[in-house]
């Protein structure tokens, strides 16, 4: 092999024909899939943004531990638990939001993308169940503290009203999250069905 052979190889390379119809067919298929995957990516980004936003509520809950201790004079242990609850839920939501954001639904093969969407749904249920359990562990002693306050039952009923409003907001948010993950899963399954 010498310089001349290399040049011949180069000429041969340049004259290599490419089947345009085959390539165009592939290009069209990829474009259709890419468009659909982009839709999935949009849903995932929105879901991630919403989880990151809701994680800020954790900071607010943490801060509320201060008036709980200094104004209502609830036991210190309960106030620390309240603060830690905010920290844990806020962190978990933030980590989950970042996890969703970092999934490359465009680049992943459809089957793997569906697996990820299923995992997201499982993680959503786990996060919800964990939040409810931890919340109940906090609300029951908190309710008892409010019930026994010397100021009377107005603080307790105020707390109940606040809890009901919070619960309504929480349910609507969770429903939205589950709707989003279902839409993501369906969008990906539709791509797979079309392949």
């Amino acid at each position, binding site marked *: 092999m010498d310089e001349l052979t290399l040049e011949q190889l*180069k000429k041969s*390379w340049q004259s290599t024909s490419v089947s*345009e119809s085959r*390539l165009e067919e592939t290009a069209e298929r990829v*474009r259709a899939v890419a468009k659909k995957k982009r839709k999935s990516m949009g849903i995932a980004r929105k879901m991630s943004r919403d989880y990151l936003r809701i994680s800020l509520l954790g900071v607010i809950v943490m801060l509320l531990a201060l008036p709980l201790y200094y104004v209502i004079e609830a036991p210190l242990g309960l106030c620390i638990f309240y603060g830690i609850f905010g920290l844990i839920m806020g962190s978990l939501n933030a980590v989950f939001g970042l996890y969703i954001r970092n999934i490359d639904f465009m680049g992943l093969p459809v089957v793997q993308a569906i697996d990820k969407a299923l995992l997201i749904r499982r993680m959503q249920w786990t996060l919800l169940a964990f939040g409810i359990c931890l919340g109940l562990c906090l609300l029951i002693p908190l309710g008892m503290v409010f019930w026994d306050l010397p100021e009377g039952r107005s603080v307790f009923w105020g707390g109940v009203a606040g809890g009901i409003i919070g619960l309504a907001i929480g349910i609507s948010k969770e429903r939205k999250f589950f709707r989003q993950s279902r839409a993501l899963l369906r969008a990906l399954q539709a791509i797979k069905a079309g392949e």
Partner: protein
Amino acid sequence: MKRKQDAVRTARYEELTRQYGGLMAKVCYLYAGPGASFEDLYQETLINLWLGLESYRGEAKASTWIYRLALNTCITWHRKNDRHTGSGMTDVEAAFGLSDTAMDPGARAEQLEQLQMLHSMIADLNPIDKAIITLWLDERPYEEISAVTGLSKNNVGVRLTRIKNQLIEKGKTL
């Protein structure tokens, strides 16, 4: 508004794949080779083309931009799939029209052999050197090779001479 943007993007994508589909396929072949899934890499390049069109404003010449995009995809793929095994020659034969039954069998065999030889020769090169030789094979000027790879023109010249010597040596052993 969004629909109009999508239509413009689709038209641009179709135009670029028609014009440069062959070029992208050839670049993908050099990186994927006969033992790897050429089709997967080609599809990944097309996905990146579709995604890249969102931000492409025509600052660089279309061919330069396409080369850069294809080579970047191939280099990333090469790093991720060092020991990749795939579907063999079938995809490549079809994409390069080598499975065309109307083609003279002798010419088909010769073209296939040359493709394989070329791939074997450059298989051991590092991804950047592979990019340089790919552009040289397509007779791109030094300015364009420099623009695609980010190396200076002098550096491109020096590396190209070294790569060619390496290939000649390798060719002797094949």
